[in-house]
């Protein structure tokens, strides 16, 4: 029994239960919420260390041997994703202390956040398709409540779209799992990998893989299934939309990468060719959508879509180098995007809104905040020496290596347009003078709350710079993750045992 694989699920569950037990005490809930996220972060670091040292690890829950029981598996990719969930979870719970109002906290905000983290980690670690569906639902139910908690009109409107499209995606996923079971007679992903490869490649299997592509595609917000995202992500409070923007769509991307490297590799020319096409349209439509927006968080929401395109571009190209680029991109994106949403929350705290025409003068009044916006913003656009540059560089080089000039061209153009959007936010929110008569009056000092909000922002910005200055560590991790993904034999052996 390897407890490290179970800890990322148990710790948030325990923290959520603790928060519920301390229902009457707001302070106790805050302490337990942050402690749970911190414990998750520590467990995630230990897990990644252990996976790095000993390779892929699996636990058969309840000692039911695979493929009959539920298996938890951690390879480098899973462990890295769990670590990123831990980082985002910890930063968000710190940020929430200053930014979430007392009413939301009383109605179980910290418990929900921990349930959400549990669902995310469960989805990353499970080795069973149906179990993956269950973890998606755990994550979704927590996110539904977080989205609607507070009951503002905008939140209700956003929540209806979010809930509807995610439930439809879950129904498709469920149907796909059922049909896949009907075809292969197993749900264990490692066993599926073997059995799908052993079947003659046929149209039915491709049809099932397309059902998975649509189901996970809705959750990952790829073209043309992304419309729920920009309609809902800007409605909840800043820390909630930050954790959604950072983590939730990436669980969909994770599931896509996992299924389309481990199980559905029977017709690469068709499935992965389609994914590459989808990636190109996702990049373009996201960045063009952002150009038309004039609200801080809506611009960022459209950029999530465009960045998702980069992540699945690596999957579509389907070489070890390209998948490594995808993994690097996901890691870079989660940190940067969460941070940008954090900054938008501070801007709202200082200026009272998210609309760019109401913002302004933030550089004059708060130069440090402006600097901490610039780091993730330039990194998103791919300016060296920040993390985004190496992420894009890895993908572009992998694309050129197999002569995918079309997709590489799209990726480069979209990078330029991203810079345009970030410049727009910079000049509107930070550079131009504040609207009204606030321009003449001296800046009021930041409240203690707002300064506390800067702590997680600074931590994530430092992490972005650190990845940029020493990209070797993350690069090595992603290369190894990609090697494991492209050669699933090690994964299968670890789960199923040595073939006898």
């Amino acid at each position, binding site marked *: 029994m390897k407890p490290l694989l179970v800890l990322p699920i148990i710790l948030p569950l325990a923290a959520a239960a603790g928060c519920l037990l301390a229902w009457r005490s707001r302070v106790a809930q805050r302490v337990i919420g942050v402690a749970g996220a911190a414990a998750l972060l520590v467990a995630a670091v230990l897990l990644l260390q252990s996976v790095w040292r000993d390779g892929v690890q699996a636990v058969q829950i309840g000692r039911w041997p695979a493929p009959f029981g539920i298996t938890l598996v951690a390879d480098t990719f899973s462990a890295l994703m769990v670590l990123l969930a831990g980082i985002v979870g910890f930063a968000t719970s710190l940020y929430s202390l200053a930014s979430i109002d007392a009413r939301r906290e009383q109605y179980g905000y910290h418990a929900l956040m921990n349930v959400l983290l549990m669902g995310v980690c469960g989805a990353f670690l499970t080795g069973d398709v149906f179990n993956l569906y269950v973890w998606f639902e755990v994550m979704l139910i927590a996110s539904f409540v977080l989205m609607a908690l507070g009951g503002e009109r905008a939140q209700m*409107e956003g929540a209806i779209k979010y809930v509807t499209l995610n439930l439809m995606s879950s129904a498709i996923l469920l149907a796909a799992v059922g049909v896949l079971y009907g075809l292969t007679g197993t749900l264990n992903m490692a066993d599926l990998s073997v059995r799908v490869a052993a079947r003659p490649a046929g149209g039915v299997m491709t049809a099932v893989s397309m059902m998975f592509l649509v189901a996970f595609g809705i959750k990952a917000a790829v073209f043309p299934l992304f419309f729920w995202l920009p309609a809902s992500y800007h409605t909840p409070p800043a820390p909630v939309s930050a954790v959604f923007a950072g983590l939730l769509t990436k669980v969909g991307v994770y599931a896509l990468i996992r299924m389309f490297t481990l199980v559905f590799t029977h017709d690469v020319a068709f499935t992965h060719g389609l994914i590459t096409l989808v990636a190109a349209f996702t990049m373009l439509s996201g960045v063009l959508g952002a150009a038309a927006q004039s609200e801080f968080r809506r611009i960022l929401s459209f950029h999530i879509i465009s960045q998702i395109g980069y992540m699945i571009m690596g999957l579509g190209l389907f070489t070890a180098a390209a998948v490594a680029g995808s993994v690097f991109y996901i890691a870079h994106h989660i940190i940067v995007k969460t941070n940008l949403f954090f900054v938008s929350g501070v801007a709202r705290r200082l200026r009272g809104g998210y609309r760019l025409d109401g913002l302004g003068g933030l550089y004059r009044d708060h130069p440090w905040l402006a600097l901490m916006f610039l780091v993730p913003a330039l990194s998103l656009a791919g300016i060296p020496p920040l993390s985004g540059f190496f992420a894009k560089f890895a993908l572009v080089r992998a694309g050129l290596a197999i002569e995918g000039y079309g997709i590489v061209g799209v990726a480069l153009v979209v990078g330029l347009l991203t810079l345009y959007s970030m410049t727009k936010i910079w000049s509107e929110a930070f550079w131009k003078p504040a609207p009204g008569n606030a321009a003449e009056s001296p800046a009021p000092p930041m409240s203690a709350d707002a300064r506390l909000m800067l702590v997680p922002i600074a931590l994530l910005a430092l992490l972005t710079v650190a990845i940029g200055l020493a990209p070797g560590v993350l690069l090595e991790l992603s290369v190894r993750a990609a090697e494991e993904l492209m050669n699933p034999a090690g994964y299968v052996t670890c789960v199923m045992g040595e073939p006898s």
Partner: protein
Amino acid sequence: MIPLAIVVGGLYAAALYLIGRRSIVKLVIGLALLGHASNLLIFSAGGVTRGRPPLIRPGDEALIAPYADPLPQALILTAIVISFGVLAFALVLVHRAYTAVGSDDVDAIRTTDA
């Protein structure tokens, strides 16, 4: 098998029709039907075997084929419980949205889109 397939198809059609309507109440009913359709699809995709419960008969050492596969039913049971919970949430959400917006028309909830 064929009647079951027709029922599944009918349920999917009805669910998508209702989701396409403008009333958010019908939207929720559509989502409920969508879940039922997926559950029945799992049931039929897993293979329907009648009158052969997966029990080892007295005197036998192991199960003798054909027998009904219990796993799809276990999956459906899990999915029903999940969709029950999610649907309860969706109903409350629709009610709260109705009180916040004052209309059950989906065209009235587009202020966050622009």
